[in-house]
């Protein structure tokens, strides 16, 4: 969170389930939908896919992704692009005595990207749509 050049978000969690099972939940489209979002994910390195949330005003709810890394049972990484922010999401699975430790890291938020609203109109419109969504969800 404190790297001045690129910011990252790390969330870690232990699950009382073996890595094989966690891997399925991370990589099977119907299971991904149950915890993350609707999607057309396919477990193929280089394959593009979309995650979809319900559209909100001025934002279609689509996150454009591409599979970057597939190391079965261990590492899954994909790009995560929406509203002009391009980042990479990486899940790293580690087997533990009790099950699986999942390390999720999203990297690549550059401070200069945050202010870079190319095509002012699109930027503002999209951003305000997102804002609406955020404010609704925090009320």
């Amino acid at each position, binding site marked *: *969170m404190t790297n001045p050049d690129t*910011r990252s*978000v790390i*969330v870690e*969690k232990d*699950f009382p*389930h073996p890595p094989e*099972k*966690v891997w*399925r*939940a*991370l990589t099977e489209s119907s*299971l991904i939908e*149950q*915890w*993350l979002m609707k999607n057309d994910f396919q477990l193929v390195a280089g394959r593009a896919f979309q995650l979809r949330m319900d559209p909100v005003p001025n934002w279609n709810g689509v996150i454009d992704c591409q599979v970057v890394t597939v190391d079965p049972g261990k590492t899954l990484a994909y790009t995560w692009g929406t509203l002009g*922010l391009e980042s990479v999401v990486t899940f790293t699975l580690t087997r533990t005595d009790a099950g699986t430790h*999942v390390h*999720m890291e*999203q990297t690549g*938020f550059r401070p200069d990207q*945050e*202010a870079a*609203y190319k095509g*002012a*109109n699109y930027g*503002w419109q999209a*951003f*305000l749509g*997102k*804002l609406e969504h*955020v*404010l609704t969800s925090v009320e």
Partner: protein
Amino acid sequence: MPNAADRVFKALADPTRRALFERLARDGDLTVHALTASAGVSQPMVSKHLSALKRARLVRHRRNGRETHYSARQEALAPLVDWIGDYGAFWQNKLDLLGDVLERMDK
């Protein structure tokens, strides 16, 4: 003392203020009169809302004769972008849901 993010969130939580801000973001430099014409509220109310936006540093103003012109400060949204960019809460929630899915997969 609220921080910058608090001020921005609070200022934009009000639909009328948000509409004023969106108008300024879209149409650029406008007078209070011009804003009032489309705001659906009285000019004193528009002025009050503009003051709130100004306190949150979301708008800037300049005087031109007897008219005051307002414009949006896009850089003032930075705290909000930071907040959205911080996916920590988002992923925490998602991984909790993942735990639920894993429980169900046994059944």
